[in-house]
């Protein structure tokens, strides 16, 4: 008996529970000890998303692909929007890649806490994992859609420049952008259910203020700087610049985007941590 007690004492993680007030820092050690849950929640997200669909993960391809076809037809062919010297489908697909990823992960993040209410009410784990796993799960869709990019480029006999190997940097930036806004919106949606009605509308407007359909050159110069405060502005420009040979890398816009994303991410985490203690009582 004595031995057992000593063993328990040694293995025990001792902790105190007391009212949490104000801002909470991230508990990195705890997140690390739950690292497998990142994997499992992401895996569950993907699994559930495509279960019982006839074509499964192909949806990840079809969505951006069909959007590209339709946009190419209406904006490229009929409206004849210029496309920086590359075939319009390649141009628009490069914009749709980050956009689709961002908008999907954002709308799913908004619902993620409410949607997992039974988990939140009955079990403890670091809540931050949920929005992160949403971002990770759509990353899989993103990567599949990315492969299609090569198909599109091949079809139009378009050769990307070598800088495309730097793409992972932009992908990480896009991921952080989705997760940062995800922290804000998921937590806000628990406090105010209005958020879920606002987000679809927000995304509609957001698409227009992001150069997905149109090139930046179409925007009046006086307006560009204010529009580039939109973190996706620099990102979409960046995706194109890494692929299209004679398009200069928009370092300034990417820098602005990175700073804003970092700001959203950090404030998002702190806001999330501040209100997460109420989640179980409110969902």
């Amino acid at each position: 008996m004595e031995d057992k007690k000593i063993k328990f004492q040694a293995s025990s993680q001792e902790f105190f529970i007391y009212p949490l007030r104000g801002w909470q820092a991230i508990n990195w050690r705890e997140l690390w000890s739950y690292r497998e849950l990142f994997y499992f929640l992401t895996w569950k997200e993907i699994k559930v998303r495509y279960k019982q669909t006839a074509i499964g993960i192909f949806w990840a391809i079809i969505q951006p692909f069909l959007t590209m076809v339709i946009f190419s037809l209406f904006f490229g062919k009929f409206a004849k929007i210029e496309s920086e010297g590359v075939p319009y489908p390649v141009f628009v697909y490069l914009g749709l890649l980050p956009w689709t990823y961002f908008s999907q992960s954002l709308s799913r993040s908004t619902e993620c806490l409410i949607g997992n209410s039974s988990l939140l009410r009955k079990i403890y784990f670091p809540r931050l994992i949920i929005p992160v796993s949403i971002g990770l799960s759509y990353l899989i869709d993103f990567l599949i859609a990315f492969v299609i990019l090569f198909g599109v480029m091949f079809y139009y006999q378009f050769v990307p420049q070598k800088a495309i190997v730097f793409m992972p940097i932009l992908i990480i930036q896009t991921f952080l952008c989705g997760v940062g806004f995800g922290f804000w919106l998921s937590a806000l949606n628990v406090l105010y259910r209005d958020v879920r009605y606002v987000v679809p509308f927000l995304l509609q407007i957001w698409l227009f203020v992001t150069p997905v359909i149109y090139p930046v050159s179409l925007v009046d110069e006086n307006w560009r700087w204010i529009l580039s405060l939109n973190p996706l502005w620099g990102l979409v420009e960046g995706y194109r610049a890494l692929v299209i040979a004679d398009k200069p890398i928009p370092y300034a816009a990417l820098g602005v985007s990175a700073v804003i994303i970092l700001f959203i991410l950090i404030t998002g985490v702190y806001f999330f941590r501040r209100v997460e203690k109420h989640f179980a009582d409110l969902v």
Partner: protein
Amino acid sequence: MSDYAIQATEVSKSYRIGKLKAAHHTAREALQALAASFLRNRREKSDTLLWALKDVGFTIGQGEVFGIVGKNGSGKSTLLKIMSRITDPTAGKIHLRGRVGSLLEVGTGFHPDLTGRENVYFNGAILGMRKEEINRRFDEIIAFSEIERFIDTPVKYYSSGMYVRLGFSVAAHFDPDIMLVDEVLSVGDIAFQKKCIGRMENIARSGRTIVVVSHNMATMKELCTRAMLLHQGQVTKIGHIDQVMEEYLSQHALESNEKIIEHSNDSVVLENKMAIRRIKLEQGAGQSFRVYWQQAVNLSVDLEIFTPMEDVRFGVYLRDLAGNYLITAYNDHNKGHWQLRPGQYSVKIEFENCLKPGLYLLGLRAHQGDPQTNLLQMEDLYLEILEVSSSGAGSDPKNPALITGIRSEFLCNKLL
């Protein structure tokens, strides 16, 4: 106690209820509430606070099995939620020594579209198990649940019994130092309940600390040595389980002859097919849940049905406080099974009462097809049989035996 596992001091938890709580659901109402709070004074604001727990303190030793009892809404689940860090206390402090695992609901996070196997891994991960830990114990978990054959079937095709079996098995194979269990030992059929309790006893024997909440006094008596009684969020007694139970039963409300069920977790609803809304004792002794000795028991039960069902068996039973079944009566004694459509039903039950005077546990149960899986079970009601004269005949509780085939009458009418 120097080597305690849990020590709580002055733990309190308040919830905002009523208008203010609802107000925070939409921004517009929040703005209105904000505006209103400028007009209202502070004292009025505190009136909308509900103290689910107030200054609760206790110490639980290492390796102890500790019970918490109390009426519905007394704060038991809230306390377990605070201990498992799901929700935050408003005041107070709890010191926990050891890895905490909580089992507040079976199959938390089970996703209907995932197979049993996938859910075991997912549920395990959520409970805090490592993948290799789950791998190692996988066969054991499945063997315990006895559903090997269905392990690769999506859980939405499981019967409710299979679902809870799997859910309990996963949680029961997680090895925390401190285990918090809320009202989940009464799931599944009788055989599985026995198995769950056995498992708990094993866990306790291996030196782990367990905190159990249950309305089933028999289970509590079997498992716990010490217990605590909560009443409206406050501790009214801590001590040996027998003393606590005595206190609990004596304060248990018998003053009313009807019970209105507001939230569905009062009655254990396993599938969302039906719920009990109200139970009333007709022609009882006074305005209370009491009948006289040898007086037939007349119950009127309001049921709400959510999905059309055929072949519903509905029954009532009486158990003694040690948990032995003494009387069961089912609707198949006379009218046959029911076919129910969604809506409100009123059920009138009358059965002969041949028990000795004393306090009994009255339960209601419904199932469909397989008698081992309940659609619904509730037993949170005490029926007292009063003596008329000093001589009390009837079944001898010293030698409890189940009496079936007593005269009973079940009438079911659709209201809406």
